[in-house]
């Protein structure tokens, strides 16, 4: 009997320690309903794109594309045709090269500049900041930028796309603020140990800055992956054509290639081919983002300084 009382006490203590479930109010239901609507508005167009890409040619006869096409009727013909094109694989590779090199260069330049600007004692710091923010507010436009790139002999080179946008001022300022929030005592202790600034940056600041580096790296990566206008503008050689340019041509093909005698894409519905191209172009970013997202939620400065 004593044991049962003890157990009951234990049970009661456990019951007391569990948080009570909050009853959902009408407001909560309203918020849920609103978020559900937003989810549907966001998800349905994406789902429609996926469905179109899997719709076989025969089914388009019945009435076009059906949002509720069962997976048993899905056709991979559009994907097969898209992936069998050498041009698609080549453009995909070019996009990977451009994105990786662009992100690398941009992160190096942005990080070095942001770190330097965290030092209030930097000679001319205010002038540098003013000039940098000036470029943030005022854009010279397409023609002067093209002329500068051309005069630097950078045309038909990936550097023509990477260097003009080498530092995004907004990301620079975000990174600068992040570096400023790292306790100065970390740097001071490293200086006492005899480290120079580059060593401090490499060994202390950057390891603590993984979330911001990955976030800004992702933003740069998405920019380069999706950029089609700058490659069209600055690249002349077909060997360098990245995926967005090919995708642009594919998406416009429905208006163009019906007028040529040999339509190169005809074993799947034209819309399915276009949507398959869109999905294939999206996939790398969809795979990368969840991998990076876990770094956003990790804590910063864990066990670094106890003050």
């Amino acid at each position, binding site marked *: 009997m004593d044991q049962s009382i003890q157990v009951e006490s234990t049970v009661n203590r456990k019951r007391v320690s569990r948080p009570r479930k909050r009853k959902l109010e009408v407001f909560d239901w309203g918020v849920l309903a609103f978020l559900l609507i937003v989810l549907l508005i966001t998800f349905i167009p994406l789902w429609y794109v996926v469905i179109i890409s899997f719709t076989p040619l025969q089914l388009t006869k019945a009435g076009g594309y059906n949002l509720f096409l069962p997976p048993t009727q899905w056709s991979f013909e559009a994907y097969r045709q898209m992936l069998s094109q050498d041009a698609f694989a080549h453009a995909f590779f070019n996009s990977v090269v451009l994105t990786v090199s662009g992100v690398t260069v941009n992160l190096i330049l942005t990080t070095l500049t942001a770190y330097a600007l965290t030092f209030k004692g930097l000679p001319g710091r205010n002038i540098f900041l003013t000039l940098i923010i000036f470029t943030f507010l005022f854009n010279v436009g397409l023609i002067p930028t093209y002329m500068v790139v051309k005069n630097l002999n950078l045309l038909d080179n990936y550097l023509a796309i990477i260097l003009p946008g080498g530092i995004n001022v907004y990301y620079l300022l975000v990174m600068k603020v992040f570096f400023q929030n790292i306790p100065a005592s970390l740097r001071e202790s490293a200086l006492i140990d005899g480290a120079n600034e*580059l060593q401090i940056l490499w060994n202390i600041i950057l390891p603590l800055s993984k979330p911001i580096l990955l976030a800004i790296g992702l933003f740069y990566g998405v920019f380069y992956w999706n950029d089609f206008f700058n490659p069209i503008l600055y690249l002349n050689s077909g060997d360098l054509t990245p995926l967005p340019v090919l995708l642009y*041509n594919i998406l416009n093909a429905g208006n163009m290639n019906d007028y*040529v005698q040999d339509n190169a*894409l005809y074993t799947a519905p034209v819309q399915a081919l*276009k949507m398959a191209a869109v999905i294939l172009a999206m996939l790398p970013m969809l795979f990368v983002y969840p991998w990076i997202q876990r770094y956003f939620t990790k804590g910063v400065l864990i066990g670094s300084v106890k003050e």
Partner: protein
Amino acid sequence: MKIATTAQRLALWSCLAALLLSLFIAACSNNTSSNGPVDLTLWANPAAGEVGNPPSNWFFLKEVKDKLNINLHVTLIPYGDPGDAKFNAAAAANNLPDLFAPNFSTTNSDAFLKWVRGGLIAPVDSLYAMMPQSTKARYSDSQMQKLALINGKHYILQQKAGLTTRLGLFVRKDWLDKLGLQPPKTLADFLNVAKAFTFNDPDGDGKKDTYGFGASTGVGQIGLGSSFGPLFGAFGLPGIWNYNTPGKINLSLYDPGYLQAVEIIKSLQDAKVIDPAWTTISGADMTAAWKQQGKYGMMVQDFCATLCQANYSQFDTNFPKGEWEPLAPPVGPSGQSFVGTYTNVGTRMAVSQKALNGGKGPAIAKFLEWANSGDGYYLACFGQKSVNYTLDAQGNVTGTGASVPFYSHDAAPINQLRALFYNNSQAELKSRYNDFTTKDGRTISPINIYNMVHGLPWQDQTSSFEIQPAPNQTDINTYVDQGLVQFITGQKPLTQDTWNAFISGLDALGVPDWVTQTNQTLKSEGFL
């Protein structure tokens, strides 16, 4: 704290040095050699942009280098605004390519004139003598020479178009046969056949899922576009411009017949025999509607988009008994009929002043002479002999016996420049638009279909190519297109008074001044 070693420090500085060196190398990487082959840059739209660029070891470039001692650098420019932006940026930086095919969207049609006035484009008169064969075969048409003339000099190598009347009015012959109907001859016939196609289940599936007429509106121009050309043609007004008065042109809108044509279209709308999506449907969706869903009984469409083998295959798969045939345009109350309008303007090539100043004129002429005829013509338009084409007993090009026929999917990347160098002879057209057999055993000859369409009434409006857009062209287009759609769909009542008010609205947009200026321009250039 681990102190960096000398090796680590060295590694870090090496990386920085490599980064700086790569920038330097990149900056110096595009210098052309002053010895050896002549470097020529050629910019043009691709024949089929969706299949990508030619391979890096493209045989065409190798042949140009071996036979002509020219390093040809080809850039395929996408259609649309991005391509125009590339041209505009290059022009602003005086970096136009040596040779290019200006093919601007409507909004940029005056860009080329600005470049001529800015001294960026070279007169091509000096090139004619250097390429006698090409000049005789392609650049000597008097009408085309007139188009290329600006201030007394020719600034364009202007060819005459081979296929000028591509759009045709087509009807589902199988539906006519099933319903026991004759092809419509008059506007009244047209409406009756459209009603039968809409309400009498011509496809026999028991559903009301067909329309008598399918159309889409044109974009970037005044009026409803070529889909409705035959209906306006029944009143002698098949195009934007009214050429019916000798020595003078006017907007077709101002003619009383235009209102009558709009009333005819409204009657189609009111009878619900036209797909109501016509006001907003895109070209791709309209293609899906007739090709994959078989919704339309009559439509205006490109002959190749309808009946070339690759384009027809989807329709053939879904509707093996389906049959499209050209239809003569309906005859109007005054006995007039036109399918639409056409121009003779074909391929255009321009040379930059920078190229001529650099002494590249002879190289350009040599390249064009080679590519327009002989080996270069076959390489550019069809590919390699025995690989991509063979010659039949009459010496005509065919894909029979070729390992990768020129019209196949795999060959598409290697003849992306074909549109620049086609000569449009009957033999070539027969090769390009090959006959084929449908799933139910019928033989379709696209080029015969084209010849049938070409033999129907058309109106030559070649000189309209010279008409410059109004400064507020977009506003005019929007005003007219919106007004017409509102009248036809019933959003606005269509009476003589409301129509007169609509036409009066054009005055506020400066249209009369634009028409006056247009007449002056065409008169001064000898087209009126």
